């Protein structure tokens, strides 16, 4: 697996790493039970603080995507819950594709659609959580 972190985007590196591992799991690039590099190995490879890798791994363990085994490393665990999440993502992608097609038919440019999405994404998140 190759990960590529970009420090200048303003997005914390541990979040970038989490997203890339999650994405690799969703697409099947990483398989159930597959072992990820150790914290030290990956930190040296990516030239990031070991705490960055440790934080990403520990958050992913919390989400149930990784299992950390004392002394032997991190393993991908696609439990049923994770698999159904993967399915949800696939369904969501299809629905988004349909919605975007409709918006395009209404004459919206891709740039305008993107802005509208980003604006809405930040706004209601707090409300949904409550």
């Amino acid at each position, binding site marked *: 697996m190759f990960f590529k972190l970009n420090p200048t*985007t*303003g997005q914390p*590196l541990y979040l970038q790493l989490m997203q890339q591992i999650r994405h690799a799991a969703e697409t099947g690039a990483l398989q159930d039970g597959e072992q990820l590099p150790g914290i030290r190995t990956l*930190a040296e490879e990516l030239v990031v603080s070991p705490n960055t890798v440790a934080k990403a791994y520990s958050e992913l363990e919390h989400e149930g995507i990784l299992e950390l085994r004392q002394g032997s490393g991190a393993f991908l665990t696609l439990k049923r819950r994770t698999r159904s999440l993967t399915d949800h993502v696939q369904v969501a992608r299809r629905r988004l594709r349909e919605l975007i097609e409709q918006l395009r038919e209404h004459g919206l440019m891709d740039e305008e659609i993107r802005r509208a999405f980003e604006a809405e994404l*930040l706004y209601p998140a*707090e409300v949904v959580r409550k």
Partner: protein
Amino acid sequence: MRNTPVILTHDLTKSYGTVMAVHGLNLSVEPNRITAFLGQNGAGKSTTIKMLLGMIRPTCGEGTVLGKRIANAEENREMRRKVAYVAENKPLYSYMTVEQTVRFASSFYSDWRADVATKLLSEYRLPNKRKVKSLSKGMRTKLALLLAFARRPELLILDEPSEGLDPVGIEHLLQTLVAQSADGVSIFFSSHQIAEVERVADHVCILDNGRLLVNASLDRLLQSYRRIDLAFRFPPPEQEFRIAGVERIRISGNALSILASMNAEAVVERAHDLNAVSVEVAPVGLRDIFLETVKEN
């Protein structure tokens, strides 16, 4: 493993006549982390580091390094055994060869790791038989760094370690910092290079004009700072956005650009209430956070 701060200062101050080099510094550096001490040239970084190591006397205030008081000569000696320090000007004996320098240094430290020294000598491609005085600036820096990295200190204090290094040298340096951190060494390094800080630092302290302006985890900084660009159908109601966390507001026609250090959600909510026709929220990199913080000061 230590769980108290490796560096702690209270009101640490150094003045030269009427010039305040360091002003009431309250610094707290946590163990098992890479902490970057970020500031422009002349911000007071080297003065602070020299006070921490007991090399210059504070005008007032106090501090501890690894729990040892910096102003106490006896405690200072104990502390220096567990701290590896690389000075800004990388002082070395120019008449010695690389090999002699390494052997000389190794005789002073009980925590010396000969295997690491050998490994770094070949990684850094340092010519063993060459005299220090004939080394390039970059090679001198590498040699000075090697002398610190070949020990197993509790704390590494590096003053502008990347100064004079080419891109390959900087890459080696950052890799070594990461490896040292994985070995459990706490690292405190000063720098004015955003690009290296944002890659390896866990924690960022921003010093400007002798004052500590930011002391926060890099992740937390990046997660709380946001740039919010708004557009209205009428001249923007700027006053409505002067709320806590909003650092700067710029206006151009019907567009408003806001930099927030926190509370971005509240700004967006207000924008919706005021019928903004476009709301864009973007993360802000360390470069902009640094430039903005320094400008405000």
